[in-house]
């Protein structure tokens, strides 16, 4: 298969200095271009570390022992400037991701674009576009400090997508958003085209509506991967991951789909209901 059209993770192991147990152990995975992959797992399962490795934070910025290989569309992290330019990243603690030197939300979004040396009129267009996408158009002239936690997260996402990255890596980007903001975000994510998205989240219901595949992390290992339907119909109890609300409901009612699996999202639930009626 063509390496240039996939994300490939090959036997990846990573350990921070000063710790005895590796945070990631032998991860193998592949993502096709344009897919949305949801990464789930309980805390300290290695989700964030995986994001950090794929974003290049480990080991380009923070030192750690890394074994194995990974490539984003054929590109290795050693080719740092080009690798970095390919990715848009939102890590945990969105407030820490602000440049800390912007007077306005618009300036903050412009930061990445100025760094890439884009022309001023193009920068202006991009700012307006991503602000509209993230629902920040009315806040463009406010000081970033004056935003709420959820708005800061949306701003962090806006800065990540402003550069039109090939790969978007999002580590729990909705943790501080209110339910409405979260719904808007997932709605936007569902419509994303031409970008491969890796998203860590605990919003399983929302994730099942939009993800092409789901990875389950447990104790530093990738213990399950597949379509949301496959993964959530075969959860192991020690992973401590709840099934989507729809699946739980369907299990109680014993509503199964044609292939015997329980539905995981609204579309599948509808399918089941039509089959039953």
């Amino acid at each position, binding site marked *: 298969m063509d390496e240039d059209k996939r994300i490939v993770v090959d036997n990846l192991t990573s350990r*921070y*200095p*000063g710790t005895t147990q590796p945070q990631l152990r032998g991860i193998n995975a592949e993502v096709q271009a344009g897919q949305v992959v949801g990464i789930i797992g309980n805390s300290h399962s290695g989700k964030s570390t995986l994001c950090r490795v794929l974003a290049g934070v480990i080991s*380009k*910025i*923070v*030192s750690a022992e890394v074994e194995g290989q990974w490539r984003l569309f054929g590109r290795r992290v050693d080719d740092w400037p080009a690798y970095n330019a390919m990715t848009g990243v939102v890590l945990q603690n969105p407030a820490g991701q602000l440049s*800390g030197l912007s007077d306005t939300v618009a300036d903050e979004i412009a930061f990445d674009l100025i760094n890439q040396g884009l022309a001023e009129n193009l920068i202006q267009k991009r700012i307006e576009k991503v602000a509209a996408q993230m629902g920040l158009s009315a806040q463009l002239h406010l000081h970033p400090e004056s935003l709420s936690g959820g708005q800061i997260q949306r701003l962090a996402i806006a800065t990540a997508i402003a550069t039109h990255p090939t790969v978007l890596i999002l580590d729990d980007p909705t943790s501080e958003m209110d339910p409405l903001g979260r719904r808007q975000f997932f709605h936007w994510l569902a419509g994303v085209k031409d970008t491969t998205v890796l998203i860590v989240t605990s919003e399983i219901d929302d994730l099942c509506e939009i993800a092409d595949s789901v990875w389950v992390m447990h104790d530093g290992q990738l213990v399950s991967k597949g379509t949301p339907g496959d993964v959530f119909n075969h959860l192991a109890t020690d992973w401590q991951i709840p099934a989507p609300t729809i699946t739980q409901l369907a299990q109680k009612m014993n509503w199964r789909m044609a292939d015997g699996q329980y539905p995981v999202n609204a579309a599948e639930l509808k399918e089941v209901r039509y089959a039953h009626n």
Partner: protein
Amino acid sequence: MKTEPIHRTSMWKFKLSAATMTLIPAAVGINYVAKALAEGLKLPVWLGSLGTFLASMLAGPVAGAISGFINNVIYGLTLSPISTVYAITSIGIGIAVGVLHANGWFSSARRVFVSAIIIAIVSAVISTPLNVIFWGGQTGIAWGDSLFAVMVANHAPVWLASFTDEFVLDILDKVCVAYLAFFIYRQLPQRMVHFFRDDK
């Protein structure tokens, strides 16, 4: 816990890494807040060099010196213009702490005391001429200045009186700051210590 000394050749690195670049403003901020806390609690010490100490311990003498310098420049441009000239003192403190820490003089409570005295001497030696030029030898702290007044009244040379005034204040302040820095540094998570020490 023992702090391992940084390799000697790397101590004087001058390349401003991205880690150091964000550490310096944080150090200046810690200086400000520590000073504000000391004033709020009416402590007889300034504590305004705590951040400089920590920056030197985490990232070496150059980072500490820059933190100290910028601290006084910003302080001077926002609150108290004269404090700008004491930037030289802060640079001295930053370098002294960094060198002492790199050579293991912050590794035990007993050694910290020796370090504090050396740092106080460095600070007082640099500050005294500035005190004489700008304030006729005073420091602006009541009990240090009363000592100064007594000495000048008894015909002691201004330089000696001013040095004594500054040194008694410095020794108390630097001992307090050194122990605070020593204690806080030991509480810092390892990943943090690694992050700022790494030469990336």
